[in-house]
């Protein structure tokens, strides 16, 4: 046990990002223990080794990879579109008092309608397909990006655009050189939240609409009565998001915040 701990410390020291996994060790051990003493029948509560075996098998067959690729691609396309719409709209709402007055109540209204709540009517309009799923993701990603961008723009200290104008910058240059960089920490936060919500919305959409993807795989497995595959889906969703968030998005958010002097080190 002592040697194991020493190993772990060595590992973390040489590869600090692995520390993210430390809290999962007790969780995994308790899962193992509960499965081992078979309080619940294995068909209801699969053993971690069984999940691992089946997971490797699915990965080997290429099913897992293909479904994962479908899901991630959908998220990427939807998120890109959501950011492309949300960012300029957020700038507009943040910069113009008139746009803020007219759009803000509408934004609050539509933000309150959860992504999934749109599914019934989207299914009527677009049917069970990619359009419906993309709409849900774009919608989900757009709002956090938009709201946070607007917030960030309004949080830029008034003296900064003033200084830029007094140094001869045009309005367009002020937006490009001062407003966008000034709002960047908030924009990154918006993208981080948007992707997080989008990832969840995607899985929900895949469960209801899907023909492929991780969400579809889980729901399909339930129909076939394979709890193991449902659990594989859960693990994949969690692991993938943890990695994306803690290795890419969170450091990005911290880096901008620090650089901008908004976060004390």
């Amino acid at each position, binding site marked *: 046990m002592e040697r194991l701990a020493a190993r772990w410390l060595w590992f973390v020291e040489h590869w600090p990002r692995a520390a993210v996994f430390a809290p999962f060790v007790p969780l995994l051990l308790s899962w193992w223990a509960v499965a081992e003493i078979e309080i619940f029948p294995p068909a209801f509560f699969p053993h971690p080794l069984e999940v691992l075996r089946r997971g490797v098998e699915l990965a080997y067959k290429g099913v897992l990879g293909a479904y994962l690729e479908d899901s991630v691609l959908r998220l990427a396309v939807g998120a890109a579109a959501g950011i492309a719409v949300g960012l300029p709209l957020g700038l507009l709402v943040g910069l113009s008092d008139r746009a803020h007055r007219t759009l803000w109540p509408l934004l609050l209204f539509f933000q309150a309608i959860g992504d999934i709540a749109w599914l019934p009517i989207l299914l009527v309009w677009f049917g069970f397909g990619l359009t419906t799923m993309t709409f849900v993701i774009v919608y989900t990603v757009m709002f956090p990006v938009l709201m946070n961008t607007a917030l960030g723009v309004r949080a830029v*200290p008034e*003296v*900064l655009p*003033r*200084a*830029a*104008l*007094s*140094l*001869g*910058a*045009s309005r367009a*240059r002020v937006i490009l*050189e*001062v407003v966008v*960089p*000034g709002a*960047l920490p908030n924009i990154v936060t918006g993208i981080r939240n948007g992707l997080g919500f989008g990832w969840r919305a995607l899985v929900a959409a895949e469960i209801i609409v899907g023909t492929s993807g991780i969400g579809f795989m889980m729901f399909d497995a339930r129909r076939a009565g394979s709890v193991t595959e449902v659990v594989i889906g859960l693990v994949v969703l969690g692991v993938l998001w943890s990695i994306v968030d803690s290795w890419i998005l969170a450091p990005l958010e911290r880096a901008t915040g620090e*650089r*901008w*002097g908004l976060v004390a080190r």
Partner: protein
Amino acid sequence: MKELLVERLSKIYFDPDRGERIAALEEVSLRIAPGEFVAVVGPSGCGKSTLLNLIAGFLEPTSGRILLDGRPVRGPGPDRGVVFQSYALFPWKTVLENVAFGPRMRGLPKAECHAKAMRYLELVGLAHVAHRYPRELSGGMQQRVGVVRALANEPEILLMDEPFAAVDAQTRMTLQEELARIYEERRPTILFVTHDVNEAVFLADRVLLLSKGRLREEIPVPIARPRRWPRLVEDDDFKALVARTLSAVRAA
């Protein structure tokens, strides 16, 4: 450097809470000659910052006009360089990029902008921090950058809004001497707003006293340059002028 003319300038706000009109500035007229250093003093709320913001073009006057070199001022522009109390450096740009910002916005080639920024940083002994970010610098150093950023853009007049109010007393005296030295060498036109009477008399050729939105008094400062603190703290003329200005401020 050109002449600044302010004619019967007023700024009236409507206070919706009290339902009445408040005059931040009332019928203020002044003239600043090319190469002149003018300080405006007064208690907080006297309208001195409003005056500076109007000249900078950040605010619209209710009535009156501002002429720089005979041309009416409309909105902010590079002919009036501004130094802010809170420095207003761009935190995501290096010191060099901050100072090069003005020349770059005016279309100079990048290499030329950087060379120019470097020359101005050398002027205040900050060439060695050119590639640092503002937050890595002390307050005094940040404001030095603020001053040379405005200077590097070669404005016709420099507007300084309590620029040294946020630094410690020791650094403030150093910065005041540095500004006096830069002024003595280059003779830019400067309008300097402060509530510190010592500072105003130390730096300016002329001190204007503002109170409750009106110009109350004008005090010439016929003290020889170069001005440095060790000499002036002993100087009877300086002490008498400070005493006179101080009593005028307190009476206003």
